[in-house]
């Protein structure tokens, strides 16, 4: 489907000094914001997307890939130094990273996190580059009927895996779909639920909804927690021996199997929608500890613990793009943001992407590989500096982030109407997370909603309104059976969890 000339041209497009500069900017920004507790790469990407509008697609996407990858490395810094993970997936890193820092070896801990993060990330990128094109060929054989079945399957998995309650997961997905139905309907193009606001005719702007739900609602939550308690910086000990400041080749090599296991777990979990890097990090950590000859050393500053969690959580990032590029289904919030950036820059994720914009896809792969090496290089030089970043006061960070969100969304939506929508969804997002509803499911459902409805309309047209015709497609039947199985499985799992809570 994709010839070698396209692949080579794509990689050639990526490996230019101009794109390298944007990857470098992205990695620098990602590591910087990742090191700030409470910001993290997702929020950084949400804020950064509108600022890439003026750029060509490849440098813009290269920049965002850099932000995402850099954020994972930066997220380990506050986890290790302050036991305050910058990102949730770095929480497992803190288990051994923070004790090692307390032993006077903060740089050794952060460097081990950097090396294992880059190793895991590179592994999953290679898997992504290898498997995504063949998977896209298979996906191309799917028609609207199979797409509807696939989306039902994706929703059944998402609802069960992400929320702590299946009912709440379904509510979050339904709300996302309902909000997605605002604007013109996909078949007749008549206005729907716009309440007289013609600005809504093209639907609710994705940057407003995504930034409001993911960035502003989180900033509001953290501002209320920080109220009257501005955190002061931490002081790192400067009197460390050279051995305590670096990771030797022997120490790195001793962790090779741990990193390979972590990268494999992260890649497999990352390819499934909705599981996320936090689960991968903790699973890898638990398996490494269980398989260790000295499990009691874990939690006390064991380098294997850091390698296990960082290689796994970083491997999720590349693998997250497998369902996104091949099927057009984002597997995580980060992937949902990347998909919105793709669309802003004229890319339509899905199986046709490889056929229609193969060169750009391989340019993206090239940028991802480049970002790994830049991440390693910037991390080596910047870790000393990022350890100072964690001491920046939250008051500055929150006010600056809010102003950047306002400016970014106003640029993305050409006015303050989009900013007003952003604020509304910030409040909705805050209330949803306060009451225990998954924002991830909401955003993914919001994103998939129009395509889901269009596929249903196309399926109905193809089958003359007789949806039992779906049963003639073996792929659709298999996916629907899998949906029922996962639905029943999560219902039983929730019932067992509820019974356990009642006993306690």
């Amino acid at each position, binding site marked *: 489907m994709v010839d070698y000339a396209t692949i080579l041209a794509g990689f050639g497009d990526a490996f230019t000094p101009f794109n390298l500069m944007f990857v470098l900017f992205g990695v620098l920004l990602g590591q910087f914001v990742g090191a700030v507790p409470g910001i993290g790469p997702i929020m950084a990407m949400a804020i950064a997307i509108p600022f890439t509008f003026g750029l060509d697609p490849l440098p813009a996407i290269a920049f965002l890939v850099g932000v995402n990858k850099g954020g994972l490395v930066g997220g380990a810094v506050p986890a290790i130094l302050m036991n305050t993970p910058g990102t949730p997936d770095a929480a497992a890193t803190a288990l051994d990273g923070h004790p090692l820092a307390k032993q006077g070896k903060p740089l050794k801990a952060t460097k081990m996190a950097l090396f294992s993060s880059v190793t895991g990330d590179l592994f999953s990128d290679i898997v992504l580059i290898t498997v995504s094109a063949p998977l896209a060929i298979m996906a191309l054989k799917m028609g609207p009927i199979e797409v509807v079945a696939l989306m039902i399957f994706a929703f059944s998995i998402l609802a069960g895996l992400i929320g702590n309650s299946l009912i709440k997961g379904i509510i979050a997905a339904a709300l996302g779909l309902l909000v997605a139905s605002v604007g013109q309907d996909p*078949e*007749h193009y008549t206005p729907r639920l716009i309440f007289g606001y013609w600005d809504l005719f093209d639907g609710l702007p994705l940057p407003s909804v995504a930034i409001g739900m993911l960035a502003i609602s989180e900033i509001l939550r953290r501002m209320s927690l920080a109220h009257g308690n501005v955190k002061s910086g931490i002081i790192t000990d400067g009197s460390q021996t050279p051995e305590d400041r670096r990771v030797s080749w022997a120490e790195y090599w001793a962790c090779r199997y741990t990193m390979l296991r972590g990268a494999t777990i992260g890649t497999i979990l990352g390819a499934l929608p909705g599981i996320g890097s936090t689960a991968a990090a903790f699973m890898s950590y638990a398996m490494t500890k269980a398989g260790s000859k000295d499990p009691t050393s874990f939690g006390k500053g064991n380098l294997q613990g850091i390698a296990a969690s960082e290689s796994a959580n970083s491997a999720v990032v590349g693998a997250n793009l497998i369902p996104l590029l091949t099927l057009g289904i984002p597997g995580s919030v980060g992937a949902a943001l990347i998909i919105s950036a793709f669309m802003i820059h004229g890319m339509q994720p899905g199986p046709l992407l490889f056929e229609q914009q193969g060169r750009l896809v391989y340019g993206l792969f090239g940028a991802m590989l480049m970002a790994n090496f830049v991440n390693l290089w910037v991390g080596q030089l910047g870790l000393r500096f990022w350890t100072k970043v964690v001491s920046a006061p939250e*008051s500055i960070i929150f*006010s600056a982030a809010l102003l950047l969100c306002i400016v970014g969304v106003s640029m993305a939506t050409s006015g303050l109407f989009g*900013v007003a929508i952003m604020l509304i969804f910030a409040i909705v997002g805050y209330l949803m997370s306060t009451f225990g509803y998954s924002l991830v499911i909401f955003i993914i459902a919001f994103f998939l909603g129009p395509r889901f*409805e269009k596929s249903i309309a196309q399926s109905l047209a193809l089958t003359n309104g007789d949806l039992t015709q779906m049963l003639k497609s073996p792929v659709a039947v298999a996916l629907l059976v899998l949906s029922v199985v996962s639905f029943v499985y999560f219902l039983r799992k929730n019932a067992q969890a509820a019974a356990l809570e009642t006993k306690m």
Partner: protein
Amino acid sequence: MGGDHVVSADRISGIFFLLLGLAMYFVVNPAHIEAVEGGSLNPKTVPDIISLILALCGGLLVLKPTTHQVANLQNILRTAGYSLLLVAGLFAMSRFGFEYVAPLLAFAIMWFIGERRPFWLAFGAVGMPALIWFLVTQALGRALP
């Protein structure tokens, strides 16, 4: 927070979604979705099905709540305060522009969080808006709100 409060949190949101679903199905969708003849999928069909799912799941949540705990009321009220501040800032921005309102908004946010150090207050209220102004208008050549 006691057990009664824990249960009531899910019941409150369950009642909200039950009422929202019913209101959408019976009131909002009929009034705000244009009826269309023909075609394979009526514009009202999907929103109607989703509204009923919302109402059904809201009802189920009222009957079978989880043990999810809600953050304390004081934090929610503080968030409401910050939200009002942002709404006021946005309104002022639509009247007077980003250049005049952003420093005041940044200062107010920092002050309410509890920042009292003059250097950081000055940096947040003057330095950050100036940096954003430079980035957007000079480096990117775009207009500020």
